[in-house]
């Protein structure tokens, strides 16, 4: 085996370990859990909302949550590389990121005051 392929061996080992762990967890669950099928378990969402009625399978209110989630998701994408280089970016980087986070927070405040965080 050449050195080139040897480097990929660790990837193969990782895939094997992941498959083993995955199978073990699901298999253990299958053996241990009781089996009581109920019709409610087959509806799209079990988050407490009834998907019957309307045009779509999803409640439009989930949309706002998805939007807020994306807000913080994108924030994380920017913050991680920034945090790694925080020292070399210096004060300039600190202020830039502060402005970015403040603007995002204002967006959250807006959503909060508009009452989209309350499910009613």
């Amino acid at each position, binding site marked *: 085996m050449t050195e080139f392929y040897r480097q990929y061996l660790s990837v193969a080992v990782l895939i094997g370990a992941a498959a083993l762990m995955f199978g073990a967890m699901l298999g253990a669950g299958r053996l241990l859990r009781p089996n009581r099928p109920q019709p409610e378990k087959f509806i799209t969402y079990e988050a407490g909302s009834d998907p019957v009625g309307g045009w779509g399978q999803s409640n439009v209110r989930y949309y706002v949550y998805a939007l807020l989630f994306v807000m913080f998701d994108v924030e994380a994408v920017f913050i991680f590389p920034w945090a790694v*280089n925080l*020292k*070399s*970016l*210096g004060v*300039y*980087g600190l202020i830039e990121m502060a402005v970015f986070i403040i*603007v995002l927070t*204002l*967006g959250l*405040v*807006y959503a*909060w*005051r*508009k009452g989209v965080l309350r499910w009613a």
Partner: protein
Amino acid sequence: MTPPISTPSINWLAISPEIALAAAGVVMVMLRSVLRRRPITMPLCVVVAISGVVAAGAVEYRLWQVVDHHRAISTVAGMVRVDLFGIFLGVVVLGATLMTLLLSVAYLRREGLDAPEYLALVLLSAAGMLAMTTANDLIVVFLALEVLSIPLYVLAAFDRRRLSSQEAGIKYFVLGAFSSAIFLYGVALTYGATGTTSLTGIASFLAHNTLLDQGTLLAGIAFLLVGLGFKVAAVPFHMWTPDVYQGAPTPITAFMSAATKAAGFAALLRVFGVAFPLYRADWRPAVFALAVLSLVVGSVAAVVQTDVKRMLAYSSIAHAGYILIGFQTATSRGREAALLYLFVYSFMTVGAFAVLTVATRRGDDRHSLDDYRGLALERPIVGGLLIFFVLAQAGIPFTGGFIAKLEVFSAAAQAHQYVLLVIGVLAAVVTAYFYLRIAYTVLTPGEETSSAKPLETPRRVDVWSGLVLVACAALVLVVGVVPGVFVHWARDATFLL
């Protein structure tokens, strides 16, 4: 300890106009959050919005003084380049934004749409447009394109009760997102071919290197042209225009037709004028085709429309064709003509849509030609202004529309583009037909027997909308009577590099 990453130096004055608009937008959203729906919220937000635009305008004036005599400010690592070209179109954008805001105050109250979000979205979109006028990097152009587009998608659908407004929002969103993707693909291909996204960087790379395989770059140029062609509504990328212009709230239609077009042409003129002047021979035929198609389709399709908003939408496509003639010549004279045309066109179209805004009644959905029958007889001033604005768009002498068309035609003649010149003149004749048809309809008394009821209009025009009407009419008239000073400004602003 890693070595410090050098951060680009920033000339804060150069990017202050965008910051002023964006900050005003954020302040309005905060006012909405803190004060909620108190009666004071909306007037306060109107004040914040207008002061944001005025502040941005003041900075543009200061920048004009600093930049004058062709000393452009290049800042943020060369990504932003503030020159007279950018400032000229920035002023056009800000003018259209101010008009839109003033026009919207009474409109929103009448339609029961009072929401600070509307004003905030207009300002954020305008911030994107300003960024577009000074962008010197394809990435910044793309960012500006998104910042200006996304608020517009929401604004087009702002009148949620009206189905046509929702339709406009969806159509604009789907086609706009599609065109953004095409533009981004063009950026990627151009980067692949030249190794840089900076406009000046691309130009100097192409000046010092010969590409063995030009396919990638040519495909990139084509995609950039398509992406920006969508935004300026050039045929064959105009499909969204009639539906969106018709469905969107009328002040927003005015905003889109004036400010978005100015921003789109700012990007077109700058990207092609700065980055690809050496590939002129390749993109000029494509722009030639766009110009001819826009002129023919815009003028002919407008003739058969029965809805005034749709008619003006097609006429805006034809106007894009005239501006494309100036762009196609790829000369400084042609750029001057395009800039002057954009300036005049912005105020003609905002004026025309302002008349539609004040002439219709609550609901904003009755814009068929029959609804406007006899408007000038019932309300001489409003109807008279509509006649003035459509005749100015037709290009009759002593209006700015005439000067703008004259400049475009003489630029085309100077560049020996006689085919474009002839098609442009013929299109002007065809468009004159439907502009005169609007004027004629407004002047004929409505028939009592016709099923369509005459427009039940409020008798009074509010002071802010009145101000918009007077300002637009005055500007169009002044450009027509004393064109020299405006031509001079446009000539100063053509200097790109």
